[in-house]
């Protein structure tokens, strides 16, 4: 398996966004994942979201762990810096990167093996620290890259390819994210792009720890009867609580909504999230309600998708640490070094 570059042929008629980029500018290398892998659909959704939000591709940093899912950053945003770190430890690398330069957009991409097993600790801690990022788990319930072992998100009783049942309880990443303090929590399905793209857009615009669990069937090892992460199973059991429209801050904010069916959330930076509610009583501002609702639907055998929780006034890590506005990686001697005179005074205090 080697790197396959995409031909750089641009169709002259391709639509351009406000920055003059076409969708092709948001693509990466040709995917080497299995044909039909849910992860590729997520890459496509990321490409579309970034294109539609008019983001400068090079201002995004993509950081991942290890796994098929973690390989995907190669397949989108080819002119962004990417970092494939070690298994399960994407969160710490992303945290450090974010501390070094608060001005970029950080996209963390991980798998359920990566984040729910070896990386569960780092997953929890990056959320409670409030790192400003989009954390996407491409959740297929198995280890894809190591060929089909159960991951910690596999439902108890679900079957692997050979028909063996999973004996352990499952970790629900969304429930955990709610508990760990993520300020934007959503679940999507790689097979439902219409819902997924706006969820990603909302997460990018959110200035805090945004977590997105995306059910992403593994066609090679987990798309058979008996799996609860197969396309068919998820389609049958999906219960979407809302659909999202996202309006970035620079667009004029419209005032007309259908009362009762659409709710708007204006975020810190002025971006507006319009929630088209499918569930009559679903309130995404209430963390406790979200947790409760999630458990309720799970008991009913349903997989809840949509924006489950959002904190309209999140505080990110830099705000908590009260760091200067300038990116740390641009500070120099004059900003950082106290100088010889201060050192002399320091010495004097030690005699």
């Amino acid at each position: 398996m080697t790197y396959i570059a995409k031909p750089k042929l641009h169709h002259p008629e391709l639509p351009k966004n406000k920055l003059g980029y076409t969708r092709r500018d948001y693509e990466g290398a040709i995917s080497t994942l299995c044909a039909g892998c849910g992860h590729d659909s997520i890459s496509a959704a990321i490409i579309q979201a970034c294109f539609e939000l008019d983001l400068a591709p090079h201002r995004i940093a993509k950081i991942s762990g290890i796994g098929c899912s973690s390989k995907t950053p190669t397949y989108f945003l080819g002119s962004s810096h990417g970092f494939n770190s070690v298994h399960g430890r994407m969160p710490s690398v992303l945290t450090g990167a974010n501390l070094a330069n608060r001005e970029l957009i950080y996209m963390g991409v991980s798998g359920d093996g990566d984040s729910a097993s070896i990386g569960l600790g780092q997953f929890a801690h990056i959320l409670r620290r409030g790192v400003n990022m989009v954390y996407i788990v491409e959740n297929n319930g198995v280890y894809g890259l190591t060929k089909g072992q159960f991951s910690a998100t596999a439902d108890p009783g679900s079957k692997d390819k050979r028909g063996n049942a999973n004996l352990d309880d499952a970790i629900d990443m969304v429930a955990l994210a709610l508990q760990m303090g993520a300020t934007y929590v959503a679940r999507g399905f790689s097979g439902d792009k219409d819902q997924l793209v706006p969820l990603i857009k909302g997460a990018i615009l959110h200035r805090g720890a945004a977590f997105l669990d995306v059910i992403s069937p593994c066609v090679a090892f987990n798309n058979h009867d008996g799996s609860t992460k197969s396309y068919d199973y998820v389609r049958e059991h999906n219960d979407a609580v809302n659909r999202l429209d996202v309006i970035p801050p620079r667009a004029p904010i419209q005032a007309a909504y259908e009362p009762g069916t659409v709710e708007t959330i204006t975020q810190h930076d002025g971006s507006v999230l319009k929630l088209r509610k499918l569930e009559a009583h679903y309130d995404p501002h209430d963390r406790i309600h979200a947790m409760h609702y999630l458990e309720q639907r799970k008991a009913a055998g349903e997989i809840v998708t949509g924006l489950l929780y959002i904190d309209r006034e999140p505080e990110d890590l830099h705000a908590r640490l009260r760091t200067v506005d300038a990116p740390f990686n641009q500070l120099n001697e004059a900003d950082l070094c106290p100088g010889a005179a201060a050192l002399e005074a320091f010495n004097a205090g030690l005699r």
Partner: protein
Amino acid sequence: MSQERVNDFVVKFANVNGSGSASANRLFAKSVLRMGVPVSPRNIFPSNIQGLPTWYEVRVSEEGYLGARGGVDLMVAMNPQTWDKDLASIEPGGYLFYDSTKPLPTSKFRDDVHVIGMPLTEICNREYTDARQRQLFKNIIYVGALSALLEIDVKEIEKLIGEQFKGKDRLIAPNLHALHMGRDYALKYLPCPIGLRVRRANRVGNRIFIDGNNAAALGCVYGGATVAAWYPITPSSSMAEAFMRHCRKYRVDAASGANKFTVIQAEDELASIGIVIGAGWNGARAFTCTSGPGISLMQEFIGLAYFAEIPAVLFDIQRGGPSTGMPTRTQQGDVLSCAYASHGDTKHVLLFPEDPHECFEFAARSFDLAERLQAPIFVLSDLDIGMNERLCEPLQWDDARRYDRGKVMRYEDLEAGREFGRYLDVDGDGIPYRTYPGTHPRRGAFFTRGTTRDAYARYTEEGAPYVENMQRLLRKFETAKQYLPRPVVAKAKEPARHGAVFYGSTGPAMKEALDRLEEKGVFLDTLRLRAFPFHDEVTEFIESHDQVFVVEQNRDAQMRALLLNECGVAPAKLIPVLHYDGTPITARFITREIGESLAALNVKPIKRTA
């Protein structure tokens, strides 16, 4: 049998952890220093549990020997629990100072030791009603008594108390009161002065008194570190805490009150090093500080930083290993686990500071090295340097000094059309160019990964580019030498056939041992290692001597192994001198070991008959 020693003795305080003795003992040490006499104190403490024994050993040495000496001339025995051991450690003719509130039978003493009893508890109980006050002032009272017994100028102690409680002025008078109460009692009832005395000298100069962790932390501030990520572990925690303190003083933007630093107490060591690597990748100067167990946990990430070529600085304040080992004792036991940290073929740059002065200097320098070499840099300190105050040269900074940010291609370089290949060896020194994320809309972006790749950072599993890359990393390691502190070579007074190599905290004991050996007619040239990879002088030094002692503080002669592995010298040339019981190495130990070894070497070879 009485000990007559002026400005040359060891006082040891045996206390109970949590009794508040630390600041009183420090007051004692510093008052000697203020009289112009060099001191070197050492904390000997348990793993942070109240009520356990703790000791503070102060070596007073006009000659300026700062290594641990071994043996005690005056034992201030304040802990009944350790009485027997404390008594046994006194040199013949030495002194025992104890709380005589409850008289002890003569069987509890030694015939060859002077016993000085003072009813400390009784005095305190008479004077104070509050239990905590009784405990705290007892310490100040014995400092007062010692000032009389050893002829320490009480004015110096008074001044120190004033400095210590600056801003909390209401505490000054009661402390002075306790001090004089102890002093007056001693002058009236005790045999003042005793055979051990402090006489004003002028041997301290403008040297400063600071511990290695504090100095290293300030070095990180001067070196431009903006991100610190750590997980508490003895004996490194005080470094992270000191960095925080220094940053609050020096790194808060005056206008906005915003911080030009971050300190993250991570969830574990894996996260600490991950944060450092993420920050280094993104162009900020970042470090972690830890000890052996933390280094073990960081191994996978260290390999990533090596192979993906990301600047990172790691301070390893070594303690007794393996495993949890002796968390509060000192060792130089992580040399090999740092030099070759992680799986596969890896080698890392190590720095070996000798004292707090070098802790500061190497700390500041490590960030230049990390960025210049795009690699993890290990600063190998240890508990002995890190957590004990040591007399050392003042910290120095030249305002003309500029940070070496290494080979970074900026927007202008890319815009000007300079070719960018992340792992291209453009200059032939093995060091490639990098770009910071977000630099340019079209050029210079690359993918960082731990898997193999070609010179343009494109994933490949081909053998040839892999080998090329591994060779380039070796080239880079060779290049590193020119940026590293050189070893310090010292010639003996007489031409010497033998040499000695040592490093880090072994330095002060070594200096003294060489003097003692010289008195016995043994002359040794020495080389103090300050960095790995080794400069060529190291091999030359070994080759130009018949035999070279390698003095270090671990069981398996780790530095010797590294020298054998990297310098290609004959194993028989390197004689290990190993001290590893957790206490700092002493001149006595080195002198004895080298002396015995040389005696054995001089034995004529046995002639074989047929």
